[in-house]
C-alpha cells in the first residue's frame, strides 16, 4: 500500500492550489457578502478544463481520474466553499449521469459542451416534500406524442439559475414492487430556455452564499422524447448512482473547508499574542490543533480512498463504491464542522467577524452535513451494507 501521490497527481494538486490562491481566494469574501455567483471564475475554470476533469478526451474532457477531480474540489474549497460546490454539482450531478446513462447522441450533445465548460450543469431531485425520501416526488412527466410534458417544481437546486443543462427527475407512472404500489421515477435532460421551465425563489442561505440556489418550476414544460435519460422507470437508480459519486465531491468540499480553516488558524495562532506570547505557545492551542490535524488526515484518507474506488468502478462496473463514498462524506462533513467550529474558537472574537475567513468557512461547512444525503442518510447506507 503506497500512500504517496503519483507525479501527475502532485502536479495537478499544485496547479489547483496555484489557481485557487490566485483566481479564487481574492473573490471569496466579496462574493459571499454580496451573494453573487462568480461567473468570472466559472469562465476561468472552463478555460483550463476544470469542468471536465474525469471526462474522457473524446467527450471534450481532460481524461483524468476521479482522484484528480476530488483534489480540484478540495483545493477550490480550501479558499472558497462556493467555488468547490459549483465544480462538484456540475461534474458529479450533471455530467456524470449523462456520461454514465446517456445515449451516444446525448453524450455528444450535452457532455461535450458541459465538459468543455461551454455550458454549466445542475441536478434536480429534491422537492419540498421529497428530500431524503425520494419516493415523495410530486413532479410528473407524461408522454404526449413525441414529447414529455413536465409539471411540478424542484427546490434547493445548486447552480440553479446559472446552469444551462439540468438532469431532472419526475414520476412517470406507478409500478408494483414487493406487493406495494410505488412511484415509477424517470430521469430527463432539460435545457434552460425550454418554454414552461422557469425559476422561483432564490434561497437566502446560511453558507455557500455565492452559490446560485433556486427553485425550478415546470409548467407544461415540453421536452423532446429523446431527452429521457436512461430507461423509463430507472430514475431512482440513476439518482442513487449519481448521489454516490456526488458524495465524493461534497466530501472533497468538506475536506477542503477543514484544511483551509486549519491552515488559516495555524497562521493566526502564531501571530496572535496574549499574555506576552503567541497563543500557539499555549498547550491548549497545541493539543486542539493536533487533534484537528489528525481528524483532517482521517477525512483525507477516506475521501481519496472513495475517489480511487470510483476510479476502479470506471474500469470494472461490478465494483461498488457506495459505502466508501458514504463513509467519506459522513466523516469529512462532520470533521469539517468540528474543525471550522474549533478554528473559530481559536480565533476568539475575531473568528466571529466576517473579515476573517474562518467565519465563512464555518457557515459553509454546515451544508456538507446536509446536502447530497444528510449524515443520517450516510449512516443508513453504511449500516445497510453492514447488516445485509
Amino acid at each position: 500500500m503506497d500512500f504517496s501521490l503519483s507525479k501527475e497527481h502532485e502536479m495537478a494538486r499544485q496547479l489547483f492550489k496555484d489557481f485557487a490562491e490566485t483566481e479564487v481566494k481574492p473573490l471569496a469574501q466579496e462574493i459571499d457578502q454580496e451573494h453573487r455567483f462568480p461567473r468570472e471564475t466559472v469562465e476561468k475554470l472552463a478555460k483550463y478544463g476544470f469542468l471536465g476533469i474525469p471526462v474522457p478526451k473524446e467527450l471534450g474532457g481532460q481524461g483524468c481520474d476521479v482522484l484528480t477531480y476530488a483534489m480540484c474540489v478540495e483545493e477550490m474549497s480550501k479558499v472558497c466553499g462556493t467555488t468547490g460546490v459549483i465544480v462538484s454539482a456540475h461534474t458529479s450531478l450533471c455530467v456524470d449521469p449523462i456520461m454514465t446513462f446517456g445515449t451516444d447522441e446525448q453524450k455528444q450533445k450535452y457532455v461535450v459542451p458541459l465538459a468543455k465548460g461551454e455550458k454549466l450543469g445542475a441536478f434536480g431531485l429534491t422537492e419540498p416534500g421529497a428530500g431524503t425520501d425520494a419516493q415523495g416526488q410530486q413532479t410528473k412527466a407524461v408522454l404526449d406524442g413525441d414529447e414529455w410534458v413536465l409539471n411540478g417544481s424542484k427546490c434547493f437546486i445548486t447552480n440553479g439559475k446559472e446552469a444551462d443543462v439540468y438532469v431532472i427527475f419526475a414520476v412517470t407512472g406507478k409500478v408494483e414492487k414487493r406487493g406495494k404500489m410505488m412511484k415509477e421515477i424517470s430521469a430527463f435532460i432539460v435545457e434552460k430556455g425550454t418554454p414552461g421551465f422557469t425559476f422561483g425563489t432564490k434561497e437566502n442561505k446560511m453558507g455557500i452564499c455565492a452559490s446560485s440556489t433556486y427553485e425550478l418550476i415546470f409548467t407544461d414544460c415540453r421536452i423532446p422524447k429523446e431527452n429521457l435519460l436512461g430507461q423509463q422507470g430507472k430514475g431512482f437508480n440513476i439518482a442513487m448512482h449519481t448521489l454516490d459519486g456526488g458524495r465524493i465531491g461534497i466530501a472533497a468540499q468538506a475536506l477542503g473547508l477543514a484544511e483551509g480553516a486549519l491552515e488559516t488558524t495555524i497562521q493566526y495562532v502564531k501571530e496572535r499574542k496574549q499574555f506576552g506570547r503567541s497563543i500557539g505557545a499555549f498547550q491548549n492551542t497545541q493539543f486542539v490543533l493536533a487533534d484537528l490535524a489528525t481528524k483532517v488526515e482521517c477525512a483525507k484518507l477516506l475521501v481519496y480512498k472513495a475517489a480511487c474506488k470510483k476510479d476502479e468502478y470506471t474500469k470494472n462496473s461490478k465494483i461498488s463504491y457506495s459505502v466508501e463514498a458514504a463513509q467519506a462524506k459522513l466523516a469529512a462533513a462532520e470533521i469539517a464542522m468540528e474543525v471550522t467550529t474549533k478554528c473559530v474558537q481559536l480565533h476568539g472574537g475575531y473568528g466571529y467577524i466576517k473579515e476573517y475567513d474562518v467565519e465563512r468557512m464555518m457557515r459553509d461547512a454546515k451544508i456538507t452535513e446536509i446536502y447530497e444525503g444528510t449524515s443520517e442518510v450516510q449512516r443508513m447506507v453504511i449500516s445497510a451494507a453492514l447488516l445485509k
Partner: protein
Amino acid sequence: MKVVVCIKQVPDTKGGVKFNPDGTLDRGAMLAIMNPDDKAGLEAALRLKDQYGAEVTVLTMGLPKASDVLREALAMGADKAVLVTDRVLGGADTWATSTTLAGALRNLEYDLIITGRQAIDGDTAQVGPQIAEHLGIPVISYAQEIKVDKDKVTVKRQYDDRYHMVEVKMPCLITALSELNDPRYMTPGGIFDACKADITTWGRADLKDVEDGNLGLMGSPTKIAKASDKVRKGAGEKVVPDSPEDAVSYIVGKLKEKHVI
C-alpha cells in the same frame, strides 16, 4: 514555424537557498520552479502556436530533476521537450551554459529561439545573447511585445525611459521579460499527457560543435569566491519627523554617522 524556448529550473524564492561546498548552488536540495522570465517566453511561444500553429520545443540544461519544468511546459502546451544533462556540464557559468545550449540547438530546427531575459538565481541576462552569438543569429533582448509577420518578427524592446520597435528576419533569438504576458496555467489533461510523454535526453556526446574546455565548471571563466544566503536586515528604526527639513537633517546625520557622506 518552429520555436525553441530555453527554460531553466530555478530555486523557488519561497524555499531556502542551499550551497555546495564549492560555492555553487545545491539545486537538488531546493524547491524549484520554472524561471518567471522563461515562463513568459514560453507563453509567447504558445501564443504563436495558437495563432499560427507553430511547433514549440522546450530545452533545458540541468540535473535529471530539471525534467520537472519540461513536463510543466508540456502540460502548458509545448510539443516537445529536450533535457541536456551530464555530470561534465555541472557548475556551468553563463559562458559554459550558452555553449552547451548552442551545442544542443545546432541539433534542432528553429525559426525563433526565445529565452527569458534572466534567471532569478543568477540575474546575469547573459545566456540568451551569448547563445545568439554562438549560433551567429541576431538577438533582440528585453522583449515586452512580440509580433510575427511571415518571416519577420517585430519586437517592442524595453528601455529605461522609452522603447524601441525592432524588426528582424528569422531565424533570430529574443529574450523575454516577465511583463510580456501572463503565462497560462497547465491543464489537468495536459499534466497527465506530459507525465507520459517522452523527454529527449542528451548528454555531452550529443552536443554539436563544442569543445570540452568550454563546458561545465572547468570551462567556466567565472570563479565563485564565496556565496552566501542574503543577510537578513534588522527591524529598522521608525522615525516621524515634524517637518521635511527635520527629515532631511535626520537622514544626513545618519549618513554621516555611517560614514556614507
